[in-house]
């Protein structure tokens, strides 16, 4: 028997997961960074205090890196509130999640722990295990030198081999046997050595040696990571450095969509085949064996002005919509996209105009799809509330059996409402950060529609946690 408390718990948790998927504490279109952070901080504390086990279990979900680090932080600073059993599970969850996080985020978490003076046994153990399991600590020592130094200090660890000297008194040794450490030492006075360093570190040395950007990019090209390469595409094009040209088909879908949207429309039109091909390939790869299995799908995609995001998250909501468009194209058997602006050519999408969601949803329902996906920040304003009314009346009068499954995906956290903005109680809303997670989110959104209660939600979480902890393969993170 479900009690009211259970329902509230399920609701709170879903709300928290939505927030933890979407918000990054950065500025959004409607709210600034401080508002986002304050709102998020409150939510974390609220969930941690009231539902500690569910809070920890959120680490197993697709929450974004910012929130994963925040959860780990909150769990570590409040270890006293947990039972020994809880602590053990939390420790495993945190350790597992740290494996998946990008190293700079982990180091930043360590630094924050150090600055706050959090140095309990569990924290030290987690730091020790994480550092010990790095396959290439010397590389980290070069790339994240300051951060690694702090981590070693804080965890009371002795760096292995010559690493200790390198971190704390690098001038002491004449030379280092590890190539990357030695390259770093030599890079201080030798131009050639900088090309053996990671790109971000080499960039500083290049400025120091006054190496022209073009020459630098040509030489450093083999050391670029996948995402660095993507970021440098336009710079390389301008400087005519051909080597940096990335194989776009290998990029993660949402990142790729963001890159495409950063290009001016004329360039997009010129490179239409290349870009479309890359987006389709990324979408097919993401869809995997689900490709073509979703039946008749219609998507309502938001390209209103608010999808331009903010200075921090430039065009992010639109990039998510564009990525969803291509992913759905791969997933669906029969697919119709409806952009709010009435645009037909997705590749040339640009954030402009109002948000007439209501009418667009009407158009979509007229096509009688099996699944209707709405990707929007939920600021329905032409007229306000029409989308909610249309969905409500549709559900109550025209489709009471739920023949058409409607899901709203929202890429923007609404700081004021402590949740992503919902369109209507009749339709489940899930936060989305990367279009790649869409299939999982659509499943999670099922709980939001009230069909799954807390027990089912807990079972779902337990499954996810078990899979998360048992999983050995490193997931693709981006």
């Amino acid at each position, binding site marked *: 028997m479900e009690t009211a408390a259970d329902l509230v718990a399920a609701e709170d948790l879903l709300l928290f997961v939505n927030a933890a998927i979407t918000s990054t504490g950065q500025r959004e*279109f*409607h709210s600034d960074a401080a508002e986002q952070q304050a709102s998020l901080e409150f939510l974390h504390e609220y969930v941690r205090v009231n539902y500690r086990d569910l809070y920890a279990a959120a680490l197993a979900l697709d929450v974004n890196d910012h929130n994963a680090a925040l959860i780990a932080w909150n769990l570590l600073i409040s270890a006293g509130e947990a039972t020994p059993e809880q602590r053990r599970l939390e420790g495993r969850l945190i350790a597992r999640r740290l494996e998946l996080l990008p190293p700079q985020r982990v180091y930043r978490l360590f630094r924050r722990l150090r600055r706050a003076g959090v140095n309990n046994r569990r924290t030290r153990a987690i730091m020790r295990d994480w550092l010990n399991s790095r396959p290439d600590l010397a590389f980290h020592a070069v790339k994240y030198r300051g951060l690694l130094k702090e981590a070693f200090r804080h965890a009371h660890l002795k760096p292995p081999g010559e690493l200790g000297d390198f971190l704390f008194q690098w001038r002491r040794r004449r030379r280092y046997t590890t190539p990357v450490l030695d390259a770093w030492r030599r890079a201080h006075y030798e131009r050639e050595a900088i090309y053996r360093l990671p790109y971000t570190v080499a960039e500083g040395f290049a400025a120091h040696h006054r190496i022209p950007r073009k020459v630098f990019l040509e030489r450093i090209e083999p050391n670029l990571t996948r995402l660095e390469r993507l970021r440098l595409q336009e710079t390389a094009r301008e400087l005519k450095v051909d080597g940096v040209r990335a194989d776009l088909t290998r990029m993660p879908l949402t990142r790729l969509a963001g890159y495409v949207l950063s290009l001016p429309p004329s360039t997009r039109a010129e490179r239409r085949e290349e870009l479309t091909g890359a987006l389709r390939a990324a979408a097919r790869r993401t869809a995997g064996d689900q490709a073509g299995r979703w039946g008749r799908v219609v998507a309502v995609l938001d390209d*209103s*002005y*608010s999808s331009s995001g903010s200075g921090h998250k430039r065009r992010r909501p639109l990039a998510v919509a564009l990525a969803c468009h291509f992913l759905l194209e791969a997933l669906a058997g029969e697919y119709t996209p409806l952009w709010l*602006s009435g645009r037909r050519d997705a590749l040339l999408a640009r954030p*402009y*105009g*109002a*948000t007439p969601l*209501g*009418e667009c949803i*009407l158009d979509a*329902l*007229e096509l009688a799809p099996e699944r209707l996906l709405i990707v929007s920040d939920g600021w329905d*304003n*032409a*007229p*306000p*509330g*029409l989308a*909610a*009314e*249309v969905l*409500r*009346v*549709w559900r*109550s*009068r*025209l489709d009471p059996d739920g023949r058409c499954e409607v899901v709203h995906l929202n890429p923007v956290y609404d700081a004021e409402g402590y949740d992503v903005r919902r369109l209507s109680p009749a339709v489940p809303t899930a936060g989305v950060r990367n279009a790649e997670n869409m299939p999982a989110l659509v499943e999670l959104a099922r709980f939001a529609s009230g069909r799954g209660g807390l027990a089912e939600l807990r079972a779902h979480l337990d499954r996810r946690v078990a899979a998360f902890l048992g999983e050995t393969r490193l997931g693709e993170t981006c």
Partner: protein
Amino acid sequence: MLTLDGLTVRPAQVWGGVRLVPLIRDEPIEGLRLEPELYEEACGVVQVDERTCYASYIPHGFVARWSAEGVSAAYGTQLRGRTERRYLPARMAMRFHRRMARRADTGRLRFLPLHLAMEGYLSLHFGGPEIAWEEWSREALRKGLSPRVEEAYHGAEIRGLEDALRIFEIHHGQCGVLLYIGDALAAAFIVPHPADYRALHPTLLQDMYGELLYHHAVLATAVPDFRAAIDDARVRSLADLRAEAARQHREWAAFHDSAMAAGLLEGEYTVEEVYRMGPFRLSRFLPSFRRDAENHIGEIITDQAGRPAYLKTFRLSRAQVRRGRLLTLLAAHDWRLSAAAEALGVPEHALGMRLEAAGLGALLRRDLLERFRARARR
């Protein structure tokens, strides 16, 4: 009487106490994007610049540059590339009665006439008494109302306006906006072409707003959205649902025009033609200065059919309305104080005190004013 002919009202967007009602034009008014030929034929005073891509008439913001040839006003939105920045924009000389100046005071921005409409209001009976009745001071007879100063608030001072303008989503084909602060109509802004609107939307923040609106912005809490509401019982099919949705639009437009914008649209105005360019007329207008009505001053460009191609209004505050009303009253009675007082139905000294309270006391002879004060005290 003003109309919004040729423009369709779209649903409002609300942020805090600010409500923005977009106006859509089905077809932009093309003629007003003054072509170089048109400059030569219609307005000879315009320097023709071949680099000018297009232009429309804009009163302020970009306007009013001091130069050797006197005051000139830019012909509005002129898209200029990097190379053209060095040159002055194409502009036309305008006949202002006074020089312009602008000075920031603590926390307030004070404007001497900044643009056409304001100048129109300020120059209302600016010459002072036309007949040298004995009650007027020598100063008033010699210099008229000079110097005449009005105060207004810069848009950036209006709380919430900046955010509201930033997050406002401009509609496709939008050519204008009605700006409400605390649900009081603050300004109407209409341009001939959507591209102009896009370029000029941020200038709303640089406009000036009356005192009333400043206080509204400070005191007003968030205004509610007019949310759509559909009656379940009327819907049997998807077509019904669509019809109901369309009805929401119609009802909103009707409600807006009849209730929210009525004060602007149904007011009585005194229109003065300022300039004529081909089929278009630039005029400025003054309101009725009635106490119980909204009083907007503004400037308007109308086409042959009388539709507004360009409109910009400023809402007068209470004190400004009072001054306007008194001056119009005096002028209507040939500046005879007794006649004006009679028309108002008050004794002469009461009118004198009203003049003083409105900040026009300096017009009256000093000894007369003292006498009025003494009588008022009694």
